[in-house]
């Protein structure tokens, strides 16, 4: 049992499958959620899996450098800025419209 587990340590492809799965779940949430805050959470999932991908490639393709980790730090900083602006927009929108349902936001359509 221990031997089997020791021989099957996760390779690069396993890590990539994991981050792709997380990204696809985030994509599903982005497409199906009606609440704007829920959409923001799905975007966070996708950004997180992208950052994970950077670190995975850093570890397996160039372990002597840290460029992938620095990219992941930049992704985290950009995600923080995005959440701040998104939350401000949703709060202002709620004050004007009384809802954050994206189905109801079709003012420019008519």
């Amino acid at each position, binding site marked *: 049992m221990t031997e089997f587990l020791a021989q099957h340590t996760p390779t690069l492809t396993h890590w990539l499958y994991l981050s792709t799965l997380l990204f696809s779940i985030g994509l599903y949430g982005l497409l199906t959620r009606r609440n704007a805050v829920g959409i923001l959470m799905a975007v966070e999932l996708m950004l997180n899996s992208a950052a994970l991908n950077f670190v995975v490639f850093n570890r397996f393709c160039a372990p002597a450098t840290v460029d992938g980790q620095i990219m992941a730090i930049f992704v985290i900083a950009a995600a923080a*800025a995005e959440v701040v602006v998104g939350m401000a927009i949703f*709060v202002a929108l709620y004050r004007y419209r009384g809802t954050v349902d994206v189905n109801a936001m079709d003012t420019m359509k008519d």
Partner: protein
Amino acid sequence: MIASASYTVIFYLLAALAVLLSLAVVNAWKLLRAAIALMGVLSMSAGLYVMLDASFLAGVQVLVYVGGIVVLIVFAVMLTRSAELLQDNPAPLRKILGAIASLAFLAATVGVFRSSPFLLSAEKAPLRDNTTLIGEKLLDYGAGGYVLPFEIISLLLLIAIIGGIVVARKTEPQGQPFTTGGDEAGEAEFRPPFTQEEHEDELELVEK
């Protein structure tokens, strides 16, 4: 051998928990539960970063994502009263189409992974501390340094802070000119040319 066996076990444990919690993030009806599940996903990611020899990044992940961004999202849920107003259950057709789109993306990407050869490196991780290397790289202004993106990201964060304050603050009711709420000198004496009521009276006169 025990070490690599436990490495495998921990990887699959963290991966399964991350996938299950992210399914909860996109499917939970109550958004506060989704926010807590998102916190779980991000913590699992921090664990995965530790497994990838990126301990500094794991610390940043816990500090910024779990401690900051999730709290902001919880605030967003509460300030928009999403928890009580909007039970988020999308239409079945939308669910099916979303599932088809994301599964197609998954299949395409997995196909690319299977067919492309990656240039794997046989090197081990550096003996020096990763954190030292990251710090040197971030402030290195030579070739391959990251001092310019580092400064630009600080500018981006400053812009986001100011933009957040400007967008989310209380605005005057419609029909009033933009004021700073009495902060500027001479504003107290300023009176709009006509108020909303006078404007309506005028409209009535015109109609008569």
